[in-house]
C-alpha cells in the first residue's frame, strides 16, 4: 500500500484579501436581508427571496471559509448533492400543504 498522506495538501489556498472580500460580501447580503424585512413583501415571496440570499451566503461560506472550492470534486459530490436531494425530499412532503393553507383564507 502506498502512503497517501503526502497527497493531503499541506497549505491552504486563499489569501487574507480574498477572505476579507468574502466577509464583506456576506455583510452586504445581511444588510440587504434586514433592509428587505421593512419593505412589506408578501410572506411567501419574502421567504423565497430570503432563502435565495441565504443559499448564496452559505455557498460563499462553504466555498471559501470551509475551503470546499479548493477540495477534490469527489468531496463536493459527497456533500452538496446529497444535502440538496435530502432537503428537497423533506420539502416535498411539507410545502404544498402549508401554501394551500395560506390560500384557504378569505
Amino acid at each position, binding site marked *: 500500500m502506498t502512503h497517501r498522506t503526502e497527497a*493531503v495538501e499541506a497549505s491552504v489556498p486563499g489569501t487574507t484579501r480574498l477572505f476579507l472580500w468574502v466577509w464583506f460580501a456576506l455583510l452586504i447580503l445581511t444588510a440587504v436581508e434586514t433592509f428587505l424585512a421593512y419593505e412589506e413583501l408578501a410572506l411567501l415571496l419574502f421567504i423565497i427571496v430570503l432563502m435565495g440570499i441565504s443559499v448564496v451566503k452559505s455557498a460563499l461560506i462553504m466555498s471559501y471559509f470551509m475551503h470546499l472550492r479548493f477540495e477534490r470534486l469527489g468531496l463536493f459530490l*459527497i456533500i452538496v448533492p446529497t444535502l440538496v436531494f435530502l432537503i428537497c425530499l423533506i420539502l416535498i412532503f411539507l410545502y404544498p400543504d402549508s401554501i394551500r393553507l395560506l390560500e384557504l383564507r378569505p
Partner: protein
Amino acid sequence: MTWEGGPSPLAVDKKKLGMWLFLLSDSLTFSALLIGYSYVRLGTPQWPRPFEFYPAIVKATLMTVILLTSSLTMVLGVHAAHQEKRRLAVRYILLTMLGGVLFDVIHISEWIHLILNEHVTPFANPWGTPLFGGAFFGLTGLHMLHVTIGVLYLGIVALGFGRGKFSPVDVEVSGLYWHFVDLVWMFIFPLIYLINVAPK
C-alpha cells in the same frame, strides 16, 4: 486516483472527512427543524410578529455580524496554523472564541428579556399561537448550544495547538465546525427574526 485504504480518502485528512460527514447529518437536523417551523409559520396567518426594530432586530443583526466576523478570524487562524505560525493562529482562535462568547451573551440577554418582560415560554406567550415560543426557543436554543460547544471545542484546540499537541489539520477541522455554526445562523436569522418583524 483511487483510494487504497490509506489515511486520506479524497485527498483530505480522515478527520476532515469525518467532520464533513458529521456536518452533513447536523445540517439535516437543522433543515428538518427549520422546514417544520416554516411550514407552521406559513400556514398560520396570525403568527406573532413581536420583533421591534430596537432591540430585537438590531441585536440579531449585530449577532450576525459578530458571527460572520468570528468566521473570518477563524479562517485566518486556520491559514496561520498551516503556515506554522502557532502563536498567531492561537490568537486568531481566541478572537473567534471571543466572538462566540459575545454572541451567546447578547442572545441570552434577548432570551431573558423575552422570558421575564414579555412572559414568553416554550408553551405560552401573550400574543396567541403558543407554538411561537417552542419554535423560537427550540431553534435558537439548539443553535446556541452549538455555539457554546464550539467555543469549548475551540478552547481545547487552541490549548492543544499552542502546546504543539495538535496539528494544523485539527485546527482546520475545528474551523469547519465553526463555519457551519455560522452558516446555520444565516438561515435562523431570516426565518426566526426577519419574517417576524413587528408591523409598523
